[in-house]
């Protein structure tokens, strides 16, 4: 059970594929326009329930409950060793330039 007042994220479909505008590529037209928003849960609910939330600006939004205390997971990714090669290349070029 997720308690009323919990900080949650919901998901909803804004436009179904058939409702999308004409001037977009085929691959985009085939999929819905989806939306995610966070807010405080209005009633005790279960994950994946259709719920209402109150957002930070005090608006009411509804959609499927997908996360509680949603976190950020973006990072610096896997190490890209080419960056070390760039360092070496430019430092060497600068040094050689100074020696000339």
């Amino acid at each position: 059970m997720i308690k009323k007042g919990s900080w949650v994220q919901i998901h909803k479909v804004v436009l179904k594929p058939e409702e999308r505008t004409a001037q977009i590529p085929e691959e985009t037209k085939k999929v819905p326009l989806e939306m995610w928003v966070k807010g405080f849960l209005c009633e005790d609910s279960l994950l994946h329930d259709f719920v209402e939330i109150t957002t930070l600006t005090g608006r009411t939004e509804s959609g499927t409950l997908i996360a509680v205390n949603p976190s950020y997971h973006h990072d610096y990714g896997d190490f890209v060793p080419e960056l070390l090669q760039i360092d070496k290349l430019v430092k060497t070029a600068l040094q050689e330039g100074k020696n000339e």
Partner: protein
Amino acid sequence: MNKPSDYQSVLSRKNEIMKTAIQIDYDRYNYGKIGFNYEQMLEENSYPFELTKAIQIDHGVGKTPLKELKNLTALARTCAKPGKGARIFIKDEALNDSGSFKARRASMACYQAKKLGFKGVIAATSGNYGAAVASQAAKYGIKCIIVQECYDSKGVGQPEIIEKARACEAYGAEVIQTTVGPELFYVFLKLLEETGYFNASLYSPFGVTGIETLGYELVEDTLKLTGKYPDKVVVTNAGGGNLTGTARGIKRITKRPIEIIGASVNLKGLHMASDTDFNRKSFTTGHTGFGIPFVTYPDRSDVPRSAARPLRYMDRYVTVRQGEVFFITETLVALEGIERGPAGNISLAAAFSLAQEMDENQIIVVQETEYTGAGKHHQAQLSFARKNGIDIRFGHPSEEIPGVNIILPSDISLIKTEELELDKLRVSLIKNLVKNETSLFKSDLEFLVEETNSSVEFVKNVLKANHIQWEE
């Protein structure tokens, strides 16, 4: 009475929603068939320059340091002809609150919203502008909603945009994220109507004139540091506001001809509204996918008449490749000890090449940097690209195909800007503006000369070729 909220109904109310949300009657500036009084629109809907400056200083915006990149200059000189290789400077705009020059635009939008009595602001942006509006809204004590295009249909978010959502939320904004598609504008309009908040458009007169302080400062700073005026200024170009505002600011401080060069990263072949292309690009702004359409038709923005009209101010427009920008971003860290975001370094990559055409005693100024960090960092972006099947390797930049590979230059001498023909862009702009017309008034023709920064003869030739008549 509840108004219908379906797509077509909301879009049909676009003009009235906009008028309420930005409090500008754009129609009153129109004349002839296609013309509009740009200068009058700016003058009547922005603040005098000195006041803009004062408002910004009062809210912690601007007065960023200008820094000479001595090692990068020395590196450029190693591959320039004898006597060539201008001094390269950057205006370190990353040091604004919220980490980019966008604070200059946001400060004016929030000031205006507060002054007009709006309870909050809304901006549709996936970029630094969202963080800037959220940060300034926090300062002004008004509410803020940021709408951003963030995910593809598989729910995979662009790391840079996810970081921007985090920043906006850190500044207390409500963030609404959508999948790919221009219908984000529908979500945006519905929110404006529902909340009655102010449209903190990137393209409003007060937003764009808010950047004039940047152009003014960079000349002032260059004079202080070197006793000279800059010879060239490079501006990363997407929607055109950065270039427009900077150029106007430069013209405020000096009548000298300082060359204004727009620079975008080349994303040729990738469609900006494509669900599958979305995560195959490593730059979410500053690219040709925005730059060229906005240069050739500025009024595609979220206001009826954009205050960003880059073709009026641009002396040259160059492109660089994604791999070149990543290379320069890493070089800035390695040689100057300055770690900044890749999108802000598009103009730096261009300047590295352009400096080599210039004399040693000349000065080229890169007018912005942006913050970096998780998601936004070039390491994060390259790693994300690699995970999406993009081939990353060293080679000749001309081998780069956007969405397929990223080519890191195998030698510094290979970093070279490519020139876009301004006359071709001028022709496109004229064609876009006259596409529903068969004849024009004399005033329209004069408007087209201003819009394209060309000549009466040039415009007449394009009109002739497109079978459009005009009044003499």
